[in-house]
């Protein structure tokens, strides 16, 4: 499902360069729940964005669902991402001028497998957002914002859910709820990769990977 072969990512700065990933190999099977842990600066987010087709590695191959995603054109990669990958970020990354309903529908405008009204209602209901559907992010609690972000990530029925510190801004109750949603997705056959430096995700994981100075 997800395979990284000798992936290296070097960030070029003005007078120096930083190696975030160095000859990194990884294999995540379909339906696996993987937690990636490590201290700040260990390359966790780089890894996640590279898997998500958002960050081209300096070298190496990233294969997702059998596609070398950086071999695809920008247009095809964007479409692939819209249809196969759901992202959840620590800071939710919702558009401030769209309400919950519109934020959830954001990927729908670009995905081939567009959601129907029933699916949107169902996902709003499942994530307990029905009453907040027409509220803007600024009017939501942090837990509701993260649930909105999860709803957006799940709308088009992706195969893979990539989450970057999804509980980093949440209290323990909301964090547990978020992890429950991920577990639900995983139980339905979805692949989950969660990047975190917290401990709450590990109990849901099939496997935990530790990243520390680019070493497993």
């Amino acid at each position, binding site marked *: 499902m997800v395979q990284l072969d000798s992936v290296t990512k070097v960030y070029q700065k003005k007078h120096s360069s930083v190696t975030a990933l160095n000859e990194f190999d990884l294999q995540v099977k379909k339906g696996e729940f993987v937690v990636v842990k490590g201290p700040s600066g260990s390359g966790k987010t780089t890894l996640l964005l590279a898997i998500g087709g958002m960050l081209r590695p300096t070298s190496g191959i990233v294969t997702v669902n059998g596609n070398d995603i950086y071999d695809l054109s920008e247009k095809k990669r*964007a479409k692939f991402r819209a*249809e196969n990958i759901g992202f959840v970020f620590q800071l939710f*990354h919702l558009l*401030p001028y769209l309400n919950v309903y*519109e934020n959830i529908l954001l990927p729908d405008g*670009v995905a081939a497998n567009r959601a129907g009204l029933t699916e949107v209602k169902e996902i709003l209901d499942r994530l307990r957002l029905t009453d907040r559907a027409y509220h803007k992010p600024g009017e939501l609690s942090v837990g509701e914002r993260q649930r909105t972000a999860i709803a*957006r990530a799940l709308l088009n029925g992706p195969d893979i859910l990539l989450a970057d510190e999804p509980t980093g801004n949440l209290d323990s109750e909301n964090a547990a709820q978020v992890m429950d949603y991920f577990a639900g997705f995983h139980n339905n056959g979805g692949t989950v990769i969660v990047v975190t430096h917290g401990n709450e995700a590990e109990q849901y994981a099939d496997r935990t990977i530790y990243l520390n100075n680019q070493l497993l």
Partner: protein
Amino acid sequence: MILKLLIKEILHRKLNSVLSLLAIITAVTLFVSFFTMSEASKRETIRLTRDMGFNLRIIPKETDMNQFWLTGYSDLTMPEEYVDKFFLYENFSYAHLTATLHKKVTWRNREVILTGISPEIEPSGIEKTSMIFSIEPGTVYIGFEIANSFGITTGDELDIFNKSFTVARILSETGSSDDIRIYTSLIDVQEMVGKRGEINEIKALNCLCLTSDEINPIEILRNQLNEVLPDAKVIINQTIAVARERQRMMVEKYIVFILTFVVIVCAIWIAALAIINTRERQRETGILRAVGYRIGKIAVLFLGKALLLGLVGGIFGYFIGTGLASLIGPEIFKITANTIKPVYSLLIWSVIVAPVFTAFSTLIPASLAVTRDPALILMEE
């Protein structure tokens, strides 16, 4: 979805949108008001030039010039067909042409000048704004002094040498012999004074063509005239007209310079706002890329906003500019005040040029924003 995102974003970042809109409206307003008034300025110059007198006057060759300058017209006449000869002579350059017949007569025990004017003749194939009275047969224009003395008003029926006329217009006071003139059609005057087919002057105006220092038009004209009308002579008075035209052109160039400056400032203003806007929206571009939007689609969001604001700004700018020209124009151009009218073709230009101009000003910051690595943007948090 794109249009929805576009409109929602505009409404969300009101200040940025309003300031951008203001810049566009300013630029379009200035352009529209300038061009609307520039037409008025041109017409005003034409009117002022006309009021200074025709700069080409063709009169019978044997005219006593002493008498001509004293009375303002020739006592002698020449055949009306000279006008046709003039018209058909292709090498002769002129802008507006008319034939007149003047005769001092006594009417209601007062000496008045009866002036017959032929319909304006324009060079074939050239469309020009009419600069000469066009008087319908059976109607008269009455000089200020005569109208004042006899209490004549527009619409009155007058009997002049056994012919019945309707007063079409009372002319404003000029402080010249025009105040004791009765203008009517050439054919009516020819009938009244018994000079059918005769005129005593051909007047031509081409003040707007004489702008080059290198040309000495009088020599060219006299040589040309000798060829076609050997029994006539030409008097040219171009100095004032040319000076006024040159002054107008100078002012026009000056305003074009100012306008260019204003437009550049507006473009920088829009670009600066676009930079602020794109910086504010960097995270947004990252999110959109993460959920699968292509660079092209995101660029449409930025440029679409510019096009939409440009369109709205263009429409508002046109109406405000036209309104300003209608409001201020009559104060500046008093003679041709009534002719300041909306130039509707500018509306089309405004709704085309303003969006393109705005999109162009936004292009660089938008390109930089959408091509920035979305991963780096998202990792900046």
